């Protein structure tokens, strides 16, 4: 790797700025009662990692059980609880808040030149709600767990299981409010807190992506909240809204649930797409190709995302006409997603590409997300869906999008902004290794599952016919490699907090406003209100700034 754009200050003289948001105040209370969006982002990062490793450990248990065809590691109903808790924790306590609550929280005010998010107390409240929901979920797990699957499908959840549906539902309900408050805060901030000169079309695409995701959080989450309330009322006092014996309809629950939970998929992926737009531009030294198209494709995904939910219900007895319409609408979502992928690819064209760790994760994202997205088209086609639904094909599909897509983007973002958040660089070589290990491990884990799915292996079973074992062993072996790939960053990022090279303000020579202030930033972000006097991703502007700096220091 000879070519690099990394430019660090002279390590013998460089120092982390004495006054920054980390050193401003000391003591646990100064963190727990903070209103600073950057500190709340760090709180989120720590707690998210905690939940990620719980969810990951549960995934490990699932893969271990599936190593052999028989259900031998755990009882079958234990297995049901394990995959349910894996889903609940990973979706509601990791994927949904992952990029928005950490990177979005930290960066949106910096990127738009504001001192903080519009509602700092609400921001802190959303973290406490997240923690309350998360602890309740763990309490649920410790006191017997829940085995409905993360979808709380009625009438299973209302009539047939005796596990902790209520407490899990409450945990998700609480976490939902955390998500609503985060989204609401972002929308208000992006509307009202932009610095002078920061017009909508000068916003970094990261901000556009968060804007679109926030719309989904604000409009979608309340609907799943009411669906959960109705499930709780049905379990406790026995109202009949979803109960067919009383005239209710369980399909209505599916409609209400997926009205949120399909857009939730875009809540999970859109912020990741925002990260990719930033890294692709920085490591190709080019403005993102078709900025406006990429910006509007985020909004288009948000809008279309609200009209495709019934594709989760093709085999559940909705009418053929509904299947037809929702199948067509599902295809439409592929269009803005493809716009993004193609524009990122065009951004690479004739760019000066370098292969730092965030860029490696970015390439991982683009490949895996494309596979995940295209297999989504198979599933949106009702004919193939009837064959593939409820098999491992589905499992592979959404793991390609969520883990291959979102988690890769999350790691790309964490590495990319790590120097901004901590003031220190992560070690480059080992992190490149980790990125490659993750990519290899991921493909080993989930690619065999596509084949298993087309062969007809159903999801959510602890045992399977012996002829599927080879591919399952592949998958479990891959999961082990993937586990190493995820453990490595935790180790070297922690190491870098003390021993990493001093990063300086702008190690990547990136153009965003967040790079034009010190790292780690001041509590107020900027010494004075910035003025946005150039376009987004304007590398010429950055060069001119540097020239100016040279002339002034000479003269």
């Amino acid at each position, binding site marked *: 790797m000879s070519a690099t754009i990394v430019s660090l200050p002279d390590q013998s003289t460089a120092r982390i700025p004495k006054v920054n948001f980390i050193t401003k105040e000391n003591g646990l209370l100064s963190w727990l009662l903070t209103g600073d969006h950057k500190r709340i982002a760090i709180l989120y990062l720590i707690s998210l990692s905690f939940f990620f490793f719980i969810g990951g450990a549960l995934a490990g248990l699932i893969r271990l059980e599936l190593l052999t065809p028989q259900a031998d590691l755990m009882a079958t109903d234990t297995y049901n609880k394990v995959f349910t808790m894996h889903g609940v924790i990973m979706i509601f306590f990791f994927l949904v808040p992952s990029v928005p609550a950490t990177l979005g929280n930290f960066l949106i005010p910096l990127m738009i030149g504001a001192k903080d998010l519009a509602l700092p107390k609400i921001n802190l409240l959303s973290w406490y709600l997240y923690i309350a929901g998360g602890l309740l979920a763990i309490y649920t797990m410790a006191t017997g767990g829940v085995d409905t699957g993360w979808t709380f499908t009625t009438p299973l959840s209302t009539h047939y299981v005796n596990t902790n549906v209520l407490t899990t539902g409450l945990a998700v309900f609480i976490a939902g409010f955390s998500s609503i408050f985060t989204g*609401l805060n972002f929308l208000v901030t992006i509307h009202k807190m932009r610095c002078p000169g920061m017009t909508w079309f000068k916003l970094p695409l990261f901000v556009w992506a968060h804007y679109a995701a926030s719309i989904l959080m604000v409009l979608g989450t309340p609907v799943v909240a009411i669906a959960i309330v109705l499930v709780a009322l049905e379990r406790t006092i026995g109202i009949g809204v979803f109960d067919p014996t009383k*005239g209710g309809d369980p399909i209505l629950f599916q409609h209400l649930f997926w009205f949120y939970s399909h857009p939730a998929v875009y809540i999970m992926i859109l912020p990741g797409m925002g990260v990719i737009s930033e890294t692709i531009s920085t490591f190709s030294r080019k403005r993102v190709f078709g900025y406006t198209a990429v910006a509007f494709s985020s909004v288009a995904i948000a809008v279309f995302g609200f009209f495709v939910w019934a594709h989760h219900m093709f085999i559940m007895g909705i009418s053929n006409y509904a299947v037809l319409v929702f199948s067509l609408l599902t295809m439409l979502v592929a269009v803005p997603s493809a716009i993004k992928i193609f524009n990122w690819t065009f951004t690479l064209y004739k760019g000066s590409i370098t292969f730092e760790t965030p860029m490696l994760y970015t390439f991982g994202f683009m490949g895996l997300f494309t596979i995940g997205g295209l297999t989504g088209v198979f599933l949106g086609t009702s004919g193939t869906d009837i064959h593939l639904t409820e098999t491992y094909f589905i499992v592979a599909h959404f793991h390609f999008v969520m883990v291959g897509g979102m988690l890769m983007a999350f790691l790309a973002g964490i590495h990319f902004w790590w120097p901004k958040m901590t003031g220190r660089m992560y070690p480059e070589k080992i992190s490149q290794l980790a990125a490659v290990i993750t990519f290899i491990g991921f493909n080993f884990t989930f690619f065999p599952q596509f084949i298993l799915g087309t062969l007809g292996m159903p999801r959510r079973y602890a045992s399977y016919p012996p002829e599927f074992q080879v591919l399952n062993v592949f998958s479990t072996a891959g999961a082990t490699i993937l586990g190493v790939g995820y453990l490595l960053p935790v180790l070297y990022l922690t190491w870098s907090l003390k021993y990493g090279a001093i990063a300086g303000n702008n190690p990547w020579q990136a153009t965003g406003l967040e790079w034009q202030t010190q790292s780690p930033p001041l509590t107020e972000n900027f010494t004075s209100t910035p003025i946005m006097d150039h376009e987004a991703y304007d590398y010429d502007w950055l060069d001119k700034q540097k020239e100016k700096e040279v002339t002034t220091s000479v003269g």
Partner: protein
Amino acid sequence: MSDSPVIAHGASEVEHHEHPAYLRHHFESVEQQADTTNFAMWLFLLTEVMFFGGLFTAYLIYRNWYYPAFVAASHQLNIFWGTANTAVLISSSFTMAMGVWCAETRRKGGLVLCLVLTFLLGLVFLGIKSIEYSEKIEKHHVPGFHYSLKSFLDPDSDEAAKAAGDKPLPLDVARHTEVYFSLYFAMTGMHALHMIIGIAILGFMIFRARAGAYTAGHVTFVENFGLYWHFVDIIWIFLFPLLYLISRHAN
């Protein structure tokens, strides 16, 4: 060469005049702060619309499916108390609006009076609601194990059904009244929960208002709470005809 200069050509340094104490550090001006919190409140109300929207959707579907059962079940609601409660809520919206005006024109006494009146009207609403609920409990119209179809299978045994001139419903139709009451309790219950939260906040505001908190120029909190209160009222304005007046156009 890595440290590109911190952008420092801001405009804010010049204007370090006196800030009022309620201007939070991250806003440039009082107007921006008021504008921002106001926008946030509207967005929050949008989430509330979606929250109740799920219930209204369920209502819409089941009412289309089970219209005769819904009509018969709605005759069991007490239209007198329902109308009274609508009047109480509209009055409370008026007192709340007056409260916001008092805060804006810095009339402390008027504000406290208006908030207390709103608080009391809110309590009256909940009181009337509890009378209605207890009627349902007595008649076993609460969905669940003790639900009774007697009023619908044998309307002559039930005063309300008799007064509305209901005919006996076949068993399979009558059973769907339970869906109606499921929605009735879910919708009015969620509405009542919002009232309780509102009344609790009102209690807090009365204390703060007596200390003069909202009559010194910073009225955002009162304004935003006013929006919330009006929103809860509007939900009722939709619930009342949907639940109480389903068949009243015929009579």
